[in-house]
C-alpha cells in the first residue's frame, strides 16, 4: 500500500498534465460529438442531443472518406521513401569517418530544426508555377513546366516537404542505433570472413529493426496528423479542404463552427489510427 502511494506520487506530475491536456480534451470531444445543431429561423443555433447522428453523417461523408483515402495513399508512398532514404543515409554515415561525415550529419538533420510552417512557406515559393526555380530550369531546357500545386500533384508536393523535414530526424535515430551496436560483433564477423555488405545485411540491419519499427509507427501517426503543410499551401492556389482528414476536421470546427461534427470526425480518425497501430504492433511484436 505504501509503495502504491509512492508510485502515485512519482506519477502525479505526468498524470496531471496527461489528464489535463490529453484525456480531458478527448472526453470533451466525445461529449461535443453527440450534439447536433437545431436552428430556428435566422437566429443563433441551439445545440441539442443527437446521439450518434454525427458519426452516422461522418461514415457517409464522401469528402471525409476521400480525405482518409488521401491519407492512406500518402502513407503508402511517403513512409517507405522516407524510411528507405533514412536507412541508406544512416548506413553511409555509419560507414565513414571524419569531418565530412559530421558536416553531412548536421546538414541532413537541419530541416527538422526549421519550423514546419516556415519550411512549408519556403517550399510554397519553390512550387509557384512561374517563380519556381525547378520550373525555371525546366524552361531553360525547353521542357514543359510542372504545376506542383495542381490538385493532382499537391499531395506529392506535400509528401516532398514531409520527406525533406523528417528524413534527417529518422536518419539520426537510426545512426544512433547503429553506433550502439557492440563493436565485438563486427570483429567476430570479420574473423569469420564477412564482407562489408554482409556486415550490413546480417548484423547492422537486423539489429536496428526495432528502431525501424518504432520509426514506422511514428511515421504512421505523423501521416494521420498531416495538417500544417496543407494549410500553409492553401492560399497559394486551390488545395482541397479534404486533402488530409485533419485539415478537413479543422475547417469543420474553426471555419464552419461545427465543433460537434468536428469532434466526431476527430474521434473516428483517432480510433482508426489506434486500431491500425495496434494491429501492426501486435503483428510485429509477436515475432
Amino acid at each position, binding site marked *: 500500500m505504501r509503495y502504491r502511494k509512492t508510485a502515485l506520487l512519482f506519477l502525479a506530475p505526468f498524470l496531471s498534465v496527461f489528464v489535463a491536456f490529453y484525456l480531458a480534451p478527448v472526453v470533451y470531444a466525445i461529449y461535443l460529438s453527440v450534439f447536433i445543431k437545431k436552428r430556428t429561423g435566422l437566429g443563433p443555433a441551439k445545440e441539442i442531443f443527437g446521439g450518434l447522428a454525427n458519426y452516422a453523417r461522418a461514415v457517409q461523408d464522401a469528402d471525409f472518406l476521400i480525405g482518409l483515402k488521401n491519407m492512406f495513399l500518402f502513407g503508402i508512398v511517403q513512409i517507405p521513401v522516407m524510411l528507405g532514404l533514412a536507412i541508406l543515409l544512416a548506413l553511409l554515415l555509419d560507414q565513414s569517418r571524419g569531418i565530412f561525415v559530421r558536416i553531412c550529419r548536421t546538414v541532413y538533420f537541419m530541416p527538422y530544426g526549421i519550423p514546419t510552417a516556415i519550411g512549408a512557406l519556403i517550399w510554397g515559393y519553390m512550387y509557384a*508555377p512561374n517563380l519556381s526555380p525547378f520550373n525555371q530550369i525546366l524552361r531553360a531546357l525547353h521542357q514543359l513546366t510542372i504545376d506542383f500545386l495542381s490538385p493532382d500533384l499537391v499531395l506529392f508536393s506535400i509528401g516532398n516537404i514531409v520527406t525533406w523535414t523528417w528524413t534527417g530526424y529518422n536518419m539520426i535515430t537510426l545512426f544512433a542505433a547503429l553506433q550502439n551496436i557492440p563493436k565485438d560483433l563486427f570483429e567476430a564477423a570479420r574473423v569469420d570472413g564477412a564482407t562489408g555488405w554482409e556486415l550490413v545485411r546480417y548484423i547492422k540491419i537486423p539489429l536496428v529493426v526495432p528502431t525501424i519499427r518504432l520509426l514506422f509507427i511514428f511515421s504512421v501517426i505523423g501521416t494521420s496528423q498531416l495538417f500544417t503543410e496543407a494549410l500553409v499551401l492553401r492560399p497559394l492556389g486551390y488545395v482541397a479542404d479534404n486533402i488530409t482528414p485533419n485539415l478537413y476536421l479543422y475547417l469543420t470546427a474553426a*471555419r464552419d463552427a461545427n465543433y460537434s461534427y468536428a469532434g466526431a470526425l476527430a474521434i473516428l480518425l483517432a480510433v482508426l489510427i489506434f486500431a491500425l497501430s495496434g494491429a501492426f504492433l501486435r503483428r510485429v511484436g509477436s515475432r
Partner: protein
Amino acid sequence: MAPNIFSLILRHRELRTARAERTKVTIGIAASLTLLAASLLPASGASATEYNEPDYSKFKVEDGQITLEFWSWVGGLDNTVKDFERAYPNIKIHVNNVGGGPAEYQKLQTALKAGSGAPDVAQIEYDFLPSFIVTDGLADMAQYGANEVKPYFVPWTWGQVSPDGKTVFGIPQDSGPLALNYNKKIFDQYGLSVPTTWDEYAQDAEKLDKASGGKVKMGHFYPTQAPWLIGLAWASGGVFFKAQGDTWIQTLNNAAAEKTLTYWSDLVKKGYVSSIPGFTAEYYTALGAGQIASSVEAAWGPGVTAASLIDKTSGDWRAAPLPQWSKGEPLRSGNWGGSCDAVTKQSKHPKAATLFAIWLNASKNPVVANWIQFGIFPVAISGLADPDLNAPDKNPSKFFGGQNLMQLYSDASKAVSVDFAWAPWFAFANDNYNKQIDALFTGKMTPKQALDAWQDECLKNAKADGYDVKGQ
C-alpha cells in the same frame, strides 16, 4: 498556430499590413507617423465642407478604467486610436493584429466557442458576419444605441450589418465597390482605349493578345476569390443568398453569375486573361513585370496593389468605371469585401466598445488616416465627400498618377445595389468555389456545370449543418 502561419502569407489583408509597415519605414520612425496624424488635425479644421459627426455625448460608457481589446488587420491603428484615448482618458485601446480575414475568423470562432479570449471589438468582413451571428458570438449593438448613427453611413453598408433593420451586429468600416484598374503605360503602348463595355473589353483583349504575341494579358481572373465573381455578378443583378421568413434561399448558380463566369471563362480559355491565384508573389511578379494590363479591383484594391508593387509601375496605373454589359446604361457596380467592427458578447464593456466602433468609423481623423495609411475606403457619408481624402501625392492616389480615386470609387459605391445578403455558411461556399473553378479551368466542367456543382455542394453542406435552406 494556424493564424501565425497565415499571417506570414501574402494575402490581401496581410498586404495591407505590409503596406503599413513599409509606410513606417519610408517615413523613418514610428514617431513621425504620430506627427503625420497630428498634421492631419489642423487640415480638418481648415476644410471647406462640413464634416458631419455623430454626437458622441449620447453614448454613456461604463465607469472606471477600461481597456478594450481590438482585433483588426488595418495597419497604423496604434496611432489612429490615440485620438480616441485622448478624448476618453479612462479608455485604453489595445490593438491586436491576429492575422487578416480567415486567419482572424478561425481564432475568433474558437475564442467565442471557448467562452473566453475573444476581444471586445473585432473587424469582420460583411460576407462572414452572419457566420458569427448564428454562433451567438456578437452583441446586438442596438441596445447600446447604435441605431442612432445609422444616418451617418452609406445605406447599403448599414444593411449589411443590420439585416433586419433593428438589430445591429457591427459598425460599417469600409466597402469595396468595383472599378477597373488599368496600366496606362501598357494601354498607351498598344493603343488600347479604356473599355466602357464588356464587349469593348473583350475586343481590347484580343487586340492586345495579337499585338503582344500573347505576352501581355488584358486582365485577371481571381480563381480563388469567390467574392470577386460575386461582386461582378452583383453588378449584373445577381442574388446569391436571401433570407425568406425563417428559411434561406441560396442561388449561387443564378443567371447573372452564369453570364459573368461564362464571359470570363471564355477569356481565360483564349489566353487573353490570366488566372494566377491572387495576392500571391506569383501574381504580383506578373503585375509588376507588365504582363497584366488591367484588373477589376475593389476600392481597397489600389492600396493593396501600391503596397505590393512599391516602386514597380508606380504612377502608371489609372482607374476607370466598371465596364457595363451595354452602352449608355446607368453605371452599375458590385461590392467585394469591406468590413465592419463588431462587439462580442464576451466584452465586459459593451457600451465603451460600441462607442469606440462608432468613433473609429464615423470620425474624420480615423477615416482620413485609414485611407492614406492603408487604402481603407470609408463608408461614412461625410468621409466620402471630404476633400482631405483626395491626396494626389500620397498612396494610393500617387500610385495611380495622382488620380482622384475617392471620387471614382464614390461614384462606384453609389452604383452598388443595396439589396444584398450573405448566409452563415458563406465561409464554406467561399472555399468550395475554388474547387469548382479549378474543375472549370482544367476542362472538367463548363461554367454552368461549375456553378451548379457549387450550388449543389453548398446546399448539401448547409442542410447537413441544420439550415433550413432551399434552391430557387
